[in-house]
Protein backbone atom coordinates (compact mmCIF):
# COMPACT_ATOMS: atom_id res chain seq x y z
CA UNK A 1 0.00 0.00 0.00
CA UNK A 2 3.04 2.23 -0.14
CA UNK A 3 2.81 2.30 -3.91
CA UNK A 4 0.70 5.38 -3.97
CA UNK A 5 3.32 7.38 -2.20
CA UNK A 6 6.37 6.03 -3.97
CA UNK A 7 4.98 6.49 -7.46
CA UNK A 8 5.40 10.22 -7.00
CA UNK A 9 8.84 9.89 -8.57
CA UNK A 10 8.11 8.24 -11.87
CA UNK A 11 11.03 9.61 -13.90
CA UNK A 12 13.81 7.18 -14.68
CA UNK A 13 17.53 7.73 -14.94
CA UNK A 14 19.28 10.33 -12.81
CA UNK A 15 16.54 10.31 -10.20
CA UNK A 16 16.91 6.59 -9.53
CA UNK A 17 18.90 7.17 -6.36
CA UNK A 18 16.33 9.73 -5.30
CA UNK A 19 13.64 7.13 -5.85
CA UNK A 20 15.33 4.57 -3.65
CA UNK A 21 15.73 7.16 -0.92
CA UNK A 22 12.06 8.00 -1.13
CA UNK A 23 11.15 4.32 -0.95
CA UNK A 24 13.38 3.81 2.07
CA UNK A 25 11.96 6.89 3.72
CA UNK A 26 8.42 5.67 3.14
CA UNK A 27 9.13 2.16 4.36
CA UNK A 28 11.05 3.24 7.44
CA UNK A 29 8.04 4.12 9.66
CA UNK A 30 6.35 0.85 8.76
CA UNK A 31 9.47 -1.09 9.69
CA UNK A 32 9.60 0.72 13.03
CA UNK A 33 5.94 -0.02 13.78
CA UNK A 34 6.32 -3.64 12.64
CA UNK A 35 9.36 -4.07 14.87
CA UNK A 36 7.52 -2.70 17.89
CA UNK A 37 4.61 -5.02 17.12
CA UNK A 38 6.92 -8.03 16.91
CA UNK A 39 8.62 -7.19 20.19
CA UNK A 40 5.28 -6.86 22.00
CA UNK A 41 4.05 -10.10 20.45
CA UNK A 42 7.15 -12.09 21.35
CA UNK A 43 7.62 -10.71 24.83
CA UNK A 44 4.16 -12.01 25.54
CA UNK A 45 2.52 -9.11 27.34
CA UNK A 46 -0.74 -10.14 25.76
CA UNK A 47 -1.96 -13.66 25.07
CA UNK A 48 -0.61 -14.85 21.77
CA UNK A 49 -4.08 -15.52 20.37
CA UNK A 50 -5.04 -11.91 20.91
CA UNK A 51 -1.79 -10.36 19.71
CA UNK A 52 -0.25 -12.65 17.09
CA UNK A 53 3.16 -11.88 15.61
CA UNK A 54 3.11 -10.53 12.07
CA UNK A 55 4.30 -13.74 10.43
CA UNK A 56 1.20 -15.48 11.74
CA UNK A 57 -0.97 -12.74 10.32
CA UNK A 58 0.86 -13.07 7.00
CA UNK A 59 0.51 -16.86 7.05
CA UNK A 60 -3.16 -16.54 7.79
CA UNK A 61 -3.50 -13.99 4.99
CA UNK A 62 -1.83 -16.30 2.48
CA UNK A 63 -3.84 -19.30 3.66
CA UNK A 64 -7.17 -17.45 3.48
CA UNK A 65 -6.29 -16.07 0.06
CA UNK A 66 -5.17 -19.42 -1.38
CA UNK A 67 -8.30 -21.18 -0.18
CA UNK A 68 -10.39 -18.48 -1.81
CA UNK A 69 -12.10 -17.45 1.41
CA UNK A 70 -10.67 -13.95 1.63
CA UNK A 71 -11.27 -13.13 -2.07
CA UNK A 72 -14.87 -14.27 -1.78
CA UNK A 73 -15.46 -12.10 1.27
CA UNK A 74 -13.85 -9.15 -0.51
CA UNK A 75 -15.85 -9.62 -3.70
CA UNK A 76 -19.16 -9.82 -1.86
CA UNK A 77 -18.31 -6.64 0.02
CA UNK A 78 -17.31 -4.82 -3.15
CA UNK A 79 -20.48 -5.87 -4.94
CA UNK A 80 -22.56 -4.54 -2.05
CA UNK A 81 -20.55 -1.35 -1.99
CA UNK A 82 -20.90 -0.72 -5.70
CA UNK A 83 -24.61 -1.54 -5.78
CA UNK A 84 -25.37 0.77 -2.87
CA UNK A 85 -23.10 3.46 -4.22
CA UNK A 86 -24.54 3.28 -7.73
CA UNK A 87 -27.99 3.69 -6.21
CA UNK A 88 -26.82 6.68 -4.20
CA UNK A 89 -25.02 8.16 -7.20
CA UNK A 90 -28.02 8.05 -9.52
CA UNK A 91 -30.55 9.20 -6.95
CA UNK A 92 -28.22 11.70 -5.25
CA UNK A 93 -27.02 13.45 -8.39
CA UNK A 94 -30.57 13.61 -9.75
CA UNK A 95 -32.01 15.11 -6.57
CA UNK A 96 -29.05 17.47 -6.10
CA UNK A 97 -29.16 18.75 -9.66
CA UNK A 98 -32.91 19.13 -9.48
CA UNK A 99 -32.54 21.17 -6.30
CA UNK A 100 -29.91 23.32 -7.97
CA UNK A 101 -31.99 23.94 -11.07
CA UNK A 102 -35.44 24.50 -9.65
CA UNK A 103 -36.30 26.84 -6.84
CA UNK A 104 -39.45 24.89 -6.11
CA UNK A 105 -37.58 21.59 -5.78
CA UNK A 106 -35.00 23.29 -3.56
CA UNK A 107 -37.64 24.73 -1.24
CA UNK A 108 -39.37 21.39 -0.88
CA UNK A 109 -36.41 19.01 -0.69
CA UNK A 110 -33.83 21.01 1.24
CA UNK A 111 -35.64 20.90 4.62
CA UNK A 112 -36.27 17.17 4.25
CA UNK A 113 -32.66 16.45 3.33
CA UNK A 114 -31.35 18.72 6.09
CA UNK A 115 -33.39 16.88 8.71
CA UNK A 116 -31.97 13.52 7.66
CA UNK A 117 -28.36 14.59 7.25
CA UNK A 118 -27.11 15.23 10.83
CA UNK A 119 -28.08 11.73 12.01
CA UNK A 120 -25.12 9.33 11.72
CA UNK A 121 -25.90 6.80 9.01
CA UNK A 122 -25.42 3.77 11.18
CA UNK A 123 -28.13 4.98 13.54
CA UNK A 124 -30.63 4.13 10.82
CA UNK A 125 -29.31 0.57 10.65
CA UNK A 126 -31.68 -1.04 13.20
CA UNK A 127 -34.61 0.68 11.53
CA UNK A 128 -33.63 -0.65 8.11
CA UNK A 129 -33.07 -4.10 9.57
CA UNK A 130 -36.54 -4.04 11.06
CA UNK A 131 -38.20 -2.78 7.92
CA UNK A 132 -36.30 -4.75 5.30
CA UNK A 133 -35.03 -7.71 7.31
CA UNK A 134 -31.53 -9.01 7.86
CA UNK A 135 -29.31 -9.45 4.83
CA UNK A 136 -28.43 -7.92 1.52
CA UNK A 137 -31.44 -5.71 0.87
CA UNK A 138 -31.02 -3.83 4.13
CA UNK A 139 -27.27 -3.39 3.77
CA UNK A 140 -27.39 -2.17 0.19
CA UNK A 141 -30.30 0.20 0.87
CA UNK A 142 -28.65 1.59 3.98
CA UNK A 143 -25.32 2.13 2.23
CA UNK A 144 -27.14 3.84 -0.62
CA UNK A 145 -29.24 5.98 1.70
CA UNK A 146 -26.31 7.15 3.79
CA UNK A 147 -23.93 7.92 0.95
CA UNK A 148 -26.63 9.81 -0.94
CA UNK A 149 -26.45 12.79 1.44
CA UNK A 150 -22.99 14.15 0.54
CA UNK A 151 -23.78 13.50 -3.12
CA UNK A 152 -27.02 15.49 -2.92
CA UNK A 153 -25.44 18.41 -1.08
CA UNK A 154 -22.44 18.68 -3.35
CA UNK A 155 -24.40 18.32 -6.60
CA UNK A 156 -26.79 20.99 -5.37
CA UNK A 157 -23.94 23.34 -4.46
CA UNK A 158 -22.18 22.57 -7.72
CA UNK A 159 -25.14 23.47 -9.89
CA UNK A 160 -25.64 26.69 -7.96
CA UNK A 161 -21.95 27.49 -8.35
CA UNK A 162 -22.05 27.24 -12.14
CA UNK A 163 -20.93 30.66 -13.31
CA UNK A 164 -23.69 32.87 -14.66
CA UNK A 165 -21.30 34.03 -17.37
CA UNK A 166 -21.02 30.50 -18.80
CA UNK A 167 -24.79 30.26 -18.97
CA UNK A 168 -25.03 33.63 -20.70
CA UNK A 169 -22.25 32.83 -23.14
CA UNK A 170 -23.88 29.55 -24.05
CA UNK A 171 -27.30 31.15 -24.44
CA UNK A 172 -25.83 33.85 -26.65
CA UNK A 173 -24.43 31.07 -28.81
CA UNK A 174 -27.86 29.52 -29.19
CA UNK A 175 -27.84 26.74 -26.59
CA UNK A 176 -31.37 25.60 -25.74
CA UNK A 177 -32.28 24.41 -22.24
CA UNK A 178 -31.48 20.79 -22.90
CA UNK A 179 -28.05 21.50 -24.32
CA UNK A 180 -27.39 24.18 -21.76
CA UNK A 181 -27.84 21.45 -19.22
CA UNK A 182 -25.67 18.79 -20.84
CA UNK A 183 -22.97 21.09 -22.27
CA UNK A 184 -22.67 23.72 -19.55
CA UNK A 185 -24.43 22.95 -16.25
CA UNK A 186 -23.18 19.39 -15.90
CA UNK A 187 -19.52 19.99 -16.81
CA UNK A 188 -19.58 23.23 -14.83
CA UNK A 189 -20.84 21.47 -11.73
CA UNK A 190 -18.58 18.47 -12.22
CA UNK A 191 -15.87 19.43 -9.71
CA UNK A 192 -18.48 19.53 -6.97
CA UNK A 193 -20.31 16.45 -8.18
CA UNK A 194 -17.07 14.48 -8.19
CA UNK A 195 -16.27 15.69 -4.69
CA UNK A 196 -19.74 14.56 -3.63
CA UNK A 197 -19.30 11.14 -5.21
CA UNK A 198 -15.93 10.80 -3.60
CA UNK A 199 -17.27 11.69 -0.14
CA UNK A 200 -20.25 9.45 -0.76
CA UNK A 201 -18.08 6.50 -1.64
CA UNK A 202 -15.89 7.04 1.42
CA UNK A 203 -19.03 7.25 3.55
CA UNK A 204 -20.43 4.10 1.95
CA UNK A 205 -17.20 2.27 2.61
CA UNK A 206 -17.04 3.28 6.26
CA UNK A 207 -20.65 2.35 6.86
CA UNK A 208 -20.67 -0.91 4.92
CA UNK A 209 -18.11 -2.64 7.12
CA UNK A 210 -20.25 -1.96 10.18
CA UNK A 211 -23.50 -2.80 8.40
CA UNK A 212 -22.14 -6.21 7.46
CA UNK A 213 -21.47 -6.87 11.11
CA UNK A 214 -24.99 -5.90 12.13
CA UNK A 215 -26.96 -7.31 9.20
CA UNK A 216 -25.56 -10.82 9.60
CA UNK A 217 -24.84 -11.35 5.91
CA UNK A 218 -23.17 -14.73 5.24
CA UNK A 219 -20.14 -13.29 3.37
CA UNK A 220 -18.32 -9.97 3.49
CA UNK A 221 -15.21 -8.49 5.06
CA UNK A 222 -17.14 -6.88 7.90
CA UNK A 223 -18.70 -10.21 8.72
CA UNK A 224 -15.32 -11.95 8.42
CA UNK A 225 -13.68 -9.79 11.06
CA UNK A 226 -16.75 -9.77 13.27
CA UNK A 227 -17.10 -13.55 13.03
CA UNK A 228 -13.39 -14.11 13.66
CA UNK A 229 -13.84 -12.51 17.06
CA UNK A 230 -15.90 -15.42 18.31
CA UNK A 231 -13.11 -17.89 17.76
CA UNK A 232 -10.35 -15.50 18.80
CA UNK A 233 -8.92 -15.67 15.27
CA UNK A 234 -7.09 -12.39 15.65
CA UNK A 235 -4.79 -13.26 12.75
CA UNK A 236 -7.72 -13.69 10.37
CA UNK A 237 -9.22 -10.48 11.70
CA UNK A 238 -6.04 -8.52 11.03
CA UNK A 239 -5.75 -10.06 7.57
CA UNK A 240 -9.30 -8.85 6.90
CA UNK A 241 -8.45 -5.37 8.14
CA UNK A 242 -5.45 -5.23 5.79
CA UNK A 243 -7.70 -6.08 2.85
CA UNK A 244 -10.16 -3.40 3.97
CA UNK A 245 -7.37 -0.82 4.08
CA UNK A 246 -6.06 -1.80 0.67
CA UNK A 247 -9.50 -1.59 -0.94
CA UNK A 248 -10.16 1.77 0.73
CA UNK A 249 -6.87 3.15 -0.51
CA UNK A 250 -7.39 1.75 -4.00
CA UNK A 251 -10.85 3.31 -4.30
CA UNK A 252 -9.40 6.68 -3.40
CA UNK A 253 -6.16 6.62 -5.36
CA UNK A 254 -6.94 4.49 -8.38
CA UNK A 255 -10.55 5.32 -9.10
CA UNK A 256 -11.19 8.87 -8.09
CA UNK A 257 -7.80 10.41 -8.67
CA UNK A 258 -7.84 8.98 -12.20
CA UNK A 259 -11.27 10.40 -12.93
CA UNK A 260 -10.32 13.77 -11.51
CA UNK A 261 -7.03 13.95 -13.36
CA UNK A 262 -8.80 13.15 -16.58
CA UNK A 263 -11.51 15.77 -16.13
CA UNK A 264 -11.50 18.67 -13.72
CA UNK A 265 -7.73 18.76 -13.12
CA UNK A 266 -7.04 18.76 -16.86
CA UNK A 267 -9.52 21.59 -17.24
CA UNK A 268 -7.79 23.59 -14.51
CA UNK A 269 -11.00 23.71 -12.46
CA UNK A 270 -9.20 22.29 -9.44
CA UNK A 271 -5.52 21.74 -8.78
CA UNK A 272 -4.37 18.21 -8.14
Amino acid at each position, binding site marked *: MQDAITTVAVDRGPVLAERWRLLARTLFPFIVVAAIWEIIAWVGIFPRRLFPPLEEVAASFVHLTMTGILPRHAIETIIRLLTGFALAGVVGVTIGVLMGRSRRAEDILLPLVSIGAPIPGLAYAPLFLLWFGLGNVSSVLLVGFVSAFPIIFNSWTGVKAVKEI*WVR*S*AQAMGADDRRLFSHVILPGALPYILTGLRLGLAQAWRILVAVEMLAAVPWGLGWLIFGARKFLNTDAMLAGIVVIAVIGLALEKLVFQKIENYTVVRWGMISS
Partner: protein
Amino acid sequence: MVPIEIRDVSLIYDTPGGKVPGVKEVSLNIGASEFVCIVGPSGCGKSTLLNIIAGFLTPAAGEIRIGGKKVDGHGMDRGVVFQDFAQLFPWRTALGNVAFGLEMKGVPKDERERIAHEQLRLVKLDKFTGSYPHHLSGGMQQRVAIARALAYNPSVLLMDEPFAALDALTRDDMQRLLAEVWRETRKTVIYVTHNVSEAVYLADRVIVMTPHPGTVKTEIRIPLPRPRNPLSVEFLDFQKELLRHLGYETGAGEPAKANGKANA
Protein backbone atom coordinates in the same frame (compact mmCIF):
# COMPACT_ATOMS: atom_id res chain seq x y z
CA MET B 1 -24.31 43.52 -41.95
CA VAL B 2 -27.32 45.00 -40.24
CA PRO B 3 -28.36 48.24 -38.59
CA ILE B 4 -29.61 48.44 -35.00
CA GLU B 5 -32.41 50.72 -33.82
CA ILE B 6 -32.83 51.39 -30.14
CA ARG B 7 -36.00 53.28 -29.33
CA ASP B 8 -36.91 54.78 -25.93
CA VAL B 9 -35.44 51.90 -23.97
CA SER B 10 -35.84 52.09 -20.18
CA LEU B 11 -35.04 49.63 -17.44
CA ILE B 12 -35.64 49.87 -13.70
CA TYR B 13 -33.71 47.79 -11.17
CA ASP B 14 -35.76 46.42 -8.32
CA THR B 15 -33.29 46.42 -5.42
CA PRO B 16 -33.89 45.95 -1.68
CA GLY B 17 -33.24 49.68 -1.33
CA GLY B 18 -36.07 50.59 -3.71
CA LYS B 19 -36.44 51.09 -7.42
CA VAL B 20 -33.35 52.37 -9.20
CA PRO B 21 -33.53 53.44 -12.81
CA GLY B 22 -30.83 51.65 -14.80
CA VAL B 23 -31.31 53.28 -18.16
CA LYS B 24 -33.91 55.85 -19.09
CA GLU B 25 -35.39 56.52 -22.51
CA VAL B 26 -32.30 55.74 -24.52
CA SER B 27 -32.62 56.01 -28.28
CA LEU B 28 -29.86 55.24 -30.73
CA ASN B 29 -29.50 54.32 -34.36
CA ILE B 30 -26.49 52.31 -35.34
CA GLY B 31 -25.65 51.78 -38.97
CA ALA B 32 -24.73 48.52 -40.62
CA SER B 33 -21.05 47.67 -40.07
CA GLU B 34 -20.65 50.66 -37.80
CA PHE B 35 -18.28 50.43 -34.82
CA VAL B 36 -19.90 52.25 -31.90
CA CYS B 37 -18.30 52.72 -28.50
CA ILE B 38 -20.36 53.57 -25.44
CA VAL B 39 -18.38 55.35 -22.74
CA GLY B 40 -19.37 56.64 -19.34
CA PRO B 41 -18.56 56.32 -15.66
CA SER B 42 -19.56 53.29 -13.59
CA GLY B 43 -23.28 53.07 -13.03
CA CYS B 44 -24.23 55.04 -16.15
CA GLY B 45 -26.10 52.02 -17.47
CA LYS B 46 -23.80 51.26 -20.38
CA SER B 47 -23.43 47.59 -19.48
CA THR B 48 -27.15 47.40 -18.72
CA LEU B 49 -27.90 48.75 -22.17
CA LEU B 50 -25.55 46.20 -23.72
CA ASN B 51 -27.22 43.39 -21.79
CA ILE B 52 -30.61 44.59 -23.03
CA ILE B 53 -29.38 44.54 -26.61
CA ALA B 54 -27.91 41.08 -26.00
CA GLY B 55 -31.30 39.95 -24.74
CA PHE B 56 -30.20 39.01 -21.22
CA LEU B 57 -32.37 41.75 -19.74
CA THR B 58 -35.85 42.72 -20.82
CA PRO B 59 -36.49 46.47 -20.98
CA ALA B 60 -39.43 47.90 -19.05
CA ALA B 61 -40.27 50.12 -22.00
CA GLY B 62 -39.13 50.73 -25.54
CA GLU B 63 -37.86 48.31 -28.11
CA ILE B 64 -34.78 47.26 -30.02
CA ARG B 65 -34.70 46.18 -33.63
CA ILE B 66 -31.75 44.46 -35.23
CA GLY B 67 -31.99 44.43 -39.01
CA GLY B 68 -35.63 45.39 -38.61
CA LYS B 69 -36.37 42.38 -36.38
CA LYS B 70 -37.52 43.06 -32.84
CA VAL B 71 -35.22 41.73 -30.12
CA ASP B 72 -36.87 39.15 -27.90
CA GLY B 73 -34.35 37.28 -25.75
CA HIS B 74 -30.94 36.18 -26.92
CA GLY B 75 -30.38 35.08 -30.45
CA MET B 76 -27.67 33.91 -32.77
CA ASP B 77 -27.65 37.17 -34.70
CA ARG B 78 -25.51 38.60 -31.88
CA GLY B 79 -22.13 37.52 -30.52
CA VAL B 80 -21.19 38.59 -27.01
CA VAL B 81 -17.78 39.08 -25.38
CA PHE B 82 -17.60 39.82 -21.66
CA GLN B 83 -14.87 41.35 -19.52
CA ASP B 84 -14.46 38.28 -17.31
CA PHE B 85 -11.77 35.84 -18.50
CA ALA B 86 -13.86 33.10 -16.89
CA GLN B 87 -16.40 33.34 -19.73
CA LEU B 88 -14.62 30.51 -21.57
CA PHE B 89 -15.71 26.98 -20.70
CA PRO B 90 -12.79 25.46 -18.80
CA TRP B 91 -13.79 21.93 -19.85
CA ARG B 92 -13.32 22.73 -23.52
CA THR B 93 -10.15 23.44 -25.47
CA ALA B 94 -9.76 26.75 -27.32
CA LEU B 95 -11.05 24.98 -30.41
CA GLY B 96 -13.94 23.41 -28.49
CA ASN B 97 -14.92 26.79 -27.12
CA VAL B 98 -14.88 28.45 -30.52
CA ALA B 99 -16.85 25.59 -32.06
CA PHE B 100 -19.57 25.73 -29.39
CA GLY B 101 -21.95 28.05 -31.21
CA LEU B 102 -21.60 26.07 -34.43
CA GLU B 103 -22.29 22.89 -32.52
CA MET B 104 -25.48 24.43 -31.18
CA LYS B 105 -26.42 25.33 -34.74
CA GLY B 106 -25.97 21.71 -35.74
CA VAL B 107 -22.98 22.24 -38.03
CA PRO B 108 -21.18 18.89 -38.70
CA LYS B 109 -17.98 18.26 -36.77
CA ASP B 110 -15.46 18.61 -39.62
CA GLU B 111 -17.06 21.79 -40.82
CA ARG B 112 -17.22 23.44 -37.42
CA GLU B 113 -13.63 22.55 -36.63
CA ARG B 114 -12.53 24.01 -39.93
CA ILE B 115 -14.36 27.25 -39.17
CA ALA B 116 -13.05 27.32 -35.62
CA HIS B 117 -9.48 26.91 -36.89
CA GLU B 118 -10.06 29.78 -39.27
CA GLN B 119 -11.41 32.02 -36.51
CA LEU B 120 -8.51 31.20 -34.22
CA ARG B 121 -6.13 32.08 -37.04
CA LEU B 122 -7.91 35.41 -37.37
CA VAL B 123 -7.04 36.20 -33.73
CA LYS B 124 -3.54 34.73 -34.19
CA LEU B 125 -4.02 31.73 -31.93
CA ASP B 126 -3.77 28.94 -34.49
CA LYS B 127 -0.93 27.39 -32.47
CA PHE B 128 -3.10 27.03 -29.37
CA THR B 129 -6.19 25.28 -30.70
CA GLY B 130 -5.71 22.27 -28.39
CA SER B 131 -4.99 24.25 -25.21
CA TYR B 132 -7.39 24.44 -22.31
CA PRO B 133 -8.27 27.99 -21.19
CA HIS B 134 -6.30 27.77 -17.94
CA HIS B 135 -3.11 27.31 -19.93
CA LEU B 136 -3.69 30.57 -21.83
CA SER B 137 -2.86 34.10 -20.67
CA GLY B 138 -5.62 36.63 -20.06
CA GLY B 139 -5.09 38.29 -23.42
CA MET B 140 -5.15 34.97 -25.23
CA GLN B 141 -8.32 33.97 -23.42
CA GLN B 142 -10.02 37.17 -24.54
CA ARG B 143 -8.89 36.51 -28.10
CA VAL B 144 -10.48 33.06 -27.88
CA ALA B 145 -13.63 34.72 -26.58
CA ILE B 146 -13.66 37.07 -29.58
CA ALA B 147 -13.10 34.18 -31.99
CA ARG B 148 -15.88 32.29 -30.22
CA ALA B 149 -18.31 35.18 -30.61
CA LEU B 150 -17.44 35.49 -34.31
CA ALA B 151 -17.40 31.81 -35.21
CA TYR B 152 -21.11 31.29 -35.77
CA ASN B 153 -21.13 34.40 -37.90
CA PRO B 154 -23.50 36.74 -36.04
CA SER B 155 -24.12 40.04 -37.75
CA VAL B 156 -23.62 42.03 -34.54
CA LEU B 157 -20.78 41.84 -32.05
CA LEU B 158 -21.49 43.09 -28.51
CA MET B 159 -18.46 43.68 -26.30
CA ASP B 160 -18.60 44.58 -22.62
CA GLU B 161 -15.22 46.05 -21.62
CA PRO B 162 -13.44 43.00 -23.02
CA PHE B 163 -9.95 44.35 -22.39
CA ALA B 164 -10.50 46.15 -19.08
CA ALA B 165 -8.82 43.45 -17.01
CA LEU B 166 -5.68 43.30 -19.17
CA ASP B 167 -2.40 45.11 -18.58
CA ALA B 168 -1.79 48.26 -20.61
CA LEU B 169 0.63 46.80 -23.17
CA THR B 170 -1.53 43.76 -23.89
CA ARG B 171 -4.53 46.03 -24.17
CA ASP B 172 -2.83 48.07 -26.91
CA ASP B 173 -2.08 44.90 -28.85
CA MET B 174 -5.62 43.67 -28.43
CA GLN B 175 -7.08 46.95 -29.67
CA ARG B 176 -4.94 46.77 -32.78
CA LEU B 177 -5.99 43.16 -33.31
CA LEU B 178 -9.67 43.98 -32.84
CA ALA B 179 -9.44 46.86 -35.33
CA GLU B 180 -7.95 44.43 -37.84
CA VAL B 181 -10.59 41.78 -37.18
CA TRP B 182 -13.32 44.36 -37.62
CA ARG B 183 -11.84 45.55 -40.90
CA GLU B 184 -11.91 42.00 -42.20
CA THR B 185 -15.32 40.94 -40.91
CA ARG B 186 -17.23 44.25 -41.04
CA LYS B 187 -19.56 43.29 -38.19
CA THR B 188 -21.76 45.89 -36.57
CA VAL B 189 -20.02 46.38 -33.22
CA ILE B 190 -21.26 47.88 -29.96
CA TYR B 191 -18.35 48.20 -27.59
CA VAL B 192 -18.72 49.32 -23.98
CA THR B 193 -15.68 50.82 -22.27
CA HIS B 194 -14.68 53.41 -19.74
CA ASN B 195 -11.34 53.97 -21.38
CA VAL B 196 -11.47 57.12 -23.48
CA SER B 197 -8.41 56.48 -25.62
CA GLU B 198 -9.67 52.99 -26.41
CA ALA B 199 -12.94 54.48 -27.63
CA VAL B 200 -11.21 57.01 -29.86
CA TYR B 201 -8.90 54.35 -31.24
CA LEU B 202 -11.67 51.91 -32.17
CA ALA B 203 -14.91 53.74 -32.84
CA ASP B 204 -16.62 55.33 -35.80
CA ARG B 205 -18.82 57.03 -33.28
CA VAL B 206 -18.63 57.38 -29.50
CA ILE B 207 -21.78 57.58 -27.37
CA VAL B 208 -21.32 59.33 -24.02
CA MET B 209 -23.65 58.23 -21.24
CA THR B 210 -24.20 59.80 -17.82
CA PRO B 211 -25.58 58.13 -14.68
CA HIS B 212 -28.61 58.64 -12.40
CA PRO B 213 -30.49 57.79 -14.47
CA GLY B 214 -28.49 56.33 -17.35
CA THR B 215 -29.09 58.49 -20.39
CA VAL B 216 -27.25 59.41 -23.56
CA LYS B 217 -25.61 62.76 -23.05
CA THR B 218 -24.03 63.28 -26.40
CA GLU B 219 -22.29 61.55 -29.24
CA ILE B 220 -19.10 62.27 -31.14
CA ARG B 221 -18.20 61.09 -34.61
CA ILE B 222 -14.54 60.11 -35.06
CA PRO B 223 -13.77 60.51 -38.76
CA LEU B 224 -10.04 59.75 -38.40
CA PRO B 225 -8.56 57.40 -41.00
CA ARG B 226 -7.48 53.92 -39.89
CA PRO B 227 -5.08 52.67 -38.62
CA ARG B 228 -5.15 55.51 -36.15
CA ASN B 229 -2.14 57.02 -34.47
CA PRO B 230 -2.84 57.51 -30.75
CA LEU B 231 -0.14 60.16 -30.56
CA SER B 232 -1.43 62.37 -33.34
CA VAL B 233 -2.77 65.82 -32.45
CA GLU B 234 -6.25 65.02 -33.81
CA PHE B 235 -6.45 61.85 -31.78
CA LEU B 236 -5.57 63.69 -28.58
CA ASP B 237 -8.07 66.42 -29.40
CA PHE B 238 -10.85 63.86 -29.62
CA GLN B 239 -9.77 62.40 -26.30
CA LYS B 240 -9.87 65.81 -24.68
CA GLU B 241 -13.29 66.49 -26.09
CA LEU B 242 -14.58 63.20 -24.74
CA LEU B 243 -13.09 63.80 -21.32
CA ARG B 244 -14.69 67.23 -21.26
CA HIS B 245 -18.08 65.65 -21.91
CA LEU B 246 -17.43 63.22 -19.10
CA GLY B 247 -16.77 66.10 -16.74
CA TYR B 248 -12.98 66.07 -16.67
CA GLU B 249 -11.55 69.50 -17.41
CA THR B 250 -8.23 68.90 -19.10
CA GLY B 251 -6.18 72.04 -19.35
CA ALA B 252 -2.75 72.20 -20.91
CA GLY B 253 -1.38 71.84 -17.39
CA GLU B 254 -2.25 68.19 -16.98
CA PRO B 255 -1.88 66.33 -20.25
CA ALA B 256 -1.25 63.08 -18.40
CA LYS B 257 -4.92 62.66 -17.68
CA ALA B 258 -5.84 62.43 -21.33
CA ASN B 259 -4.50 58.93 -21.55
CA GLY B 260 -6.00 57.68 -18.34
CA LYS B 261 -9.28 56.08 -17.52
CA ALA B 262 -12.22 58.40 -17.32
CA ASN B 263 -13.33 57.02 -14.00
CA ALA B 264 -10.30 55.34 -12.55
